[in-house]
């Protein structure tokens, strides 16, 4: 187990460098530059700008510099938000994205598992059909349609929640973004839980438990859950990657000062250090989270050994 963890941690490095290289290559291959904007810049100024940011050096020197900086955890200074280091921007925006991401995750797990288990236990009942139809709706309704519809209803008609502002965690401003973000994951988790539980409930050890005369509650909670939730656990790895893209949309709709919003702006501004910083940070987070998921998997499923 320890060997597995160490090996995976070590393999994180080359993967992050690969992603960074890919992103960097794309930015460099693209036509234009960050200062080619609406204003025409005099050649002398352009030369100074290139020198200031090191764009006048050969590409391999720039690449080597970027890599050595990243290994040291320094992503440089933003080109657009002058005087702010990428690390500062990350430190400021990450808590916002993390807050809504984490809350959406918790909401999705609790509602999704509850609904999925209920649907599986009462297979083909009305509860089953209702929750699965709702789940299908959650998968099919794009979050950028759901979010504005919630705003329309609860902010512009009912005045319950603010349509677009951020007041930190325990406040009304959290509610709509979190619901918008979590809808699709709740739906996925409910469907995965249902199919996982259905499979397990037919297993021999459940029949044994029934034969022993255990009551249904104990069977479902103590015996079936453990195996039935395995698909949900393995989904939580990719789910994080999806959550990242989801927060981009939600932060856009509700105008939240989070990482996703900054990422889009960075791309539109060609803010190279900021783009690379956010991509690198996200990939590290996803890789580490996937490792955690694999470890959790080994704890829940005794058949798995690393």
């Amino acid at each position, binding site marked *: 187990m320890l060997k597995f963890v160490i090996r995976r941690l070590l393999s994180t490095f080359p*993967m992050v460098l690969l992603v960074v290289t890919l992103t960097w290559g794309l930015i460099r291959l693209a036509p234009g530059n960050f200062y080619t904007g609406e204003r025409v810049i005099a050649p002398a100024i352009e030369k100074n700008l290139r020198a200031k940011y090191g764009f006048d050096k050969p590409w391999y020197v720039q690449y080597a510099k970027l890599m050595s900086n990243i290994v040291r955890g320094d992503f440089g200074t933003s080109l657009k938000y002058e005087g702010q280091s990428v690390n500062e921007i990350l430190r400021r925006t990450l808590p916002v994205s993390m807050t809504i991401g984490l809350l959406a995750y918790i909401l999705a797990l609790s509602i999704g598992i509850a609904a999925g288990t209920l649907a599986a236990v009462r297979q083909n009942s009305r509860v089953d059909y209702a929750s699965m139809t709702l789940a299908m709706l959650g998968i099919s309704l794009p979050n950028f349609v759901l979010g504005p519809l919630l705003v329309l209803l609860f902010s512009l008609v009912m005045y319950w929640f603010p349509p677009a502002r951020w007041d930190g965690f325990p406040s009304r401003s959290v509610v709509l973004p979190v619901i918008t973000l979590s809808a699709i994951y709740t739906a996925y988790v409910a469907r995965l839980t249902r199919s996982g539980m259905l499979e397990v409930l037919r297993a021999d050890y459940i029949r044994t438990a029934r034969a022993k005369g255990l009551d249904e509650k104990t069977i479902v909670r103590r015996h079936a859950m453990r195996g039935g939730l395995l698909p949900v656990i393995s989904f939580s790895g990719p789910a994080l990657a999806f959550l990242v893209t989801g927060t981009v949309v939600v932060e856009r*709709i509700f105008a939240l000062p989070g990482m996703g919003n900054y990422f889009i702006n960075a791309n539109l501004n060609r803010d190279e250090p900021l783009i690379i910083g956010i*991509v690198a940070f996200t990939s590290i987070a996803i890789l580490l989270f996937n490792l955690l998921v694999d470890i959790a998997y080994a704890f829940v499923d005794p058949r798995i050994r690393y």
Partner: protein
Amino acid sequence: MSAIPIEVLAGTSLWRNAWHRLLRNRLAVLGMILVGAMVVACAAGPGIIYRATGYTYDFIPKDSGLVKSFPPSLTHPMGTDIAGRDLLARVLLGGRISLMVGIIATFVSLIIGITYGATAGYLGGKIDEAMMRAVDVLYSIPYMMIVIVLLSLFGSRSPLNQLFLLFLALGAVSWLTMSRIVRGQVISLKNQEFVLAARATGVSRRKIIFRHLMPNVLGPVIVYATLTIPNVMLQEAFLSFLGLGVQAPLASWGSLAAEGIRNIAVFPWQLIFPGVTMAVTLFSLNFLGDGLRDALDPQTRKM
């Protein structure tokens, strides 16, 4: 010699069985009908609207009094957008593009995924291991972020170029799961007798992969492809929502919804119609995909 007709017979009965099972699933049939209706409406609708009212997706009225967003009426069942363009015509054109993106990108992912997965599964051993390791690596890349970088930096002013880039980007990132499914199927198939027989009679590797294994892998592939289409459409909509996908005057459901969101407080119909149309289509496609899975894969069928 007599083996051939028997195989054909068994094949038809398998597909016919699946078809009957699909028809018994009411939600899947409803999904199929709705998807069919949507395809017909998107194909024929814009022409009919043009004949009836003279409006096309990018027709801006000459009379400046008409250049504003009207609520739904008899001439404009979905209202008009802020430039006075007929929203129904735009939603139907958007449907054409959204469906096209979904189908073409899924097709791209099918080709890459099947070739890659079948090769890995059939060759096996070290090559298989290396190829699947590569897939694992690609899985943990935040690929949507890279697509955003790609589209926003290479995005050109020509709407068609942007569309082509979109097909490529979405197809290239959605083949991973497909290749895993195909590989798993191929591995379970490749040691069966008919493959052994083919190998014994000296059929080439390529021919075994494409003629003997591929048709048997088809079931799960069809199911997964049906479920990939709504997924890709959702991703396209997401990118268009961010302003990186389909560019005006062309439209997709995503870009129409994005436009609607900007004016939601005053002209809510601009969001509601494209949004609901898209949701209904995705809903139907997902139900159809689920129904196909239950029909083609009796093991996981609902009892």
